């Protein structure tokens, strides 16, 4: 297992590039989905308040 972790001595670079990629992809997904949810909630609120006039 430790051999896997050290990645032939380049462990730091391999794992940090994976960490950066995971962070970037995670950030994009989270940011996009949260914007989507916020928009849906805003529209739903408007439509609800519209119907129960």
């Amino acid at each position: 297992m430790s051999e896997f972790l050290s990645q032939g001595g380049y462990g730091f670079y391999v794992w940090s590039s994976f960490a950066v990629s995971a962070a970037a992809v995670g950030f994009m997904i989270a940011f996009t989905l949260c914007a989507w949810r916020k928009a849906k909630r805003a529209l739903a609120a408007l439509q609800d308040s519209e119907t129960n006039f």
Partner: protein
Amino acid sequence: MSIFELANPKRFMQVSAVFLPWIAAAAAVTLAAGLVLGFAVPPDYQQGTTVRIMFLHVPAAWTAMMAYGLMAVASAIGLINRHPLADVAAKAAAPLGAVFTALGLVTGSLWGKPMWGAWWVWDGRLTSFLLLLFLYLGYIALGGAIEDENRSARACAILAIVGAVNLPIIEFSVDWWTTLHQGESILRKGGPLIAPVFLWPLFLMALGYTLLFFALWLVRIRTEIVNRRARTLTMARAT
């Protein structure tokens, strides 16, 4: 159902709702497969295990370039036959493209450090990606600065098209520039000769990033459509 029929938002929302889960699932599967294969593959005799960073660097860089191309095409469609949805698509793609470019730069630098001993090397490919990042930042800044929605969309469209026309020239001039300063750069076009065994993980990761980009792009377009509908509702109720 021609692509122009997609232009009306209601139709687009229905169609994208159907495709979105499939694209997202496909992206997850391809990325997982690419990662597993990437680690299963033996280290490269020359670069050792750092070749695994290439599986992250090249796909991110490819997706960044593809995103700019799609942005320019969507802008051209939006400019020529005034489809509001094309403008929305172009502006939705820009931040994603910028993140992929930045990701490409960081992983490129992490890949270069063990080989060249420096965090940043003025190598042709990395430099043109740095300029691509500035093109993206300029596009996003211009979009944010103009308040009027369709004027901002058309201004960004012109910038994206001018950028797309210039991108090959920038790429060529940067390559020309590297031969002037360094002689033959270590990282040849597309990286050192890639052994076929590495091609599979590389291809899978590139496909995975591309699918991920499309999934996120669709969600961002849908978000903007919903936002605009909400805005029209509030405005309609305000007067």
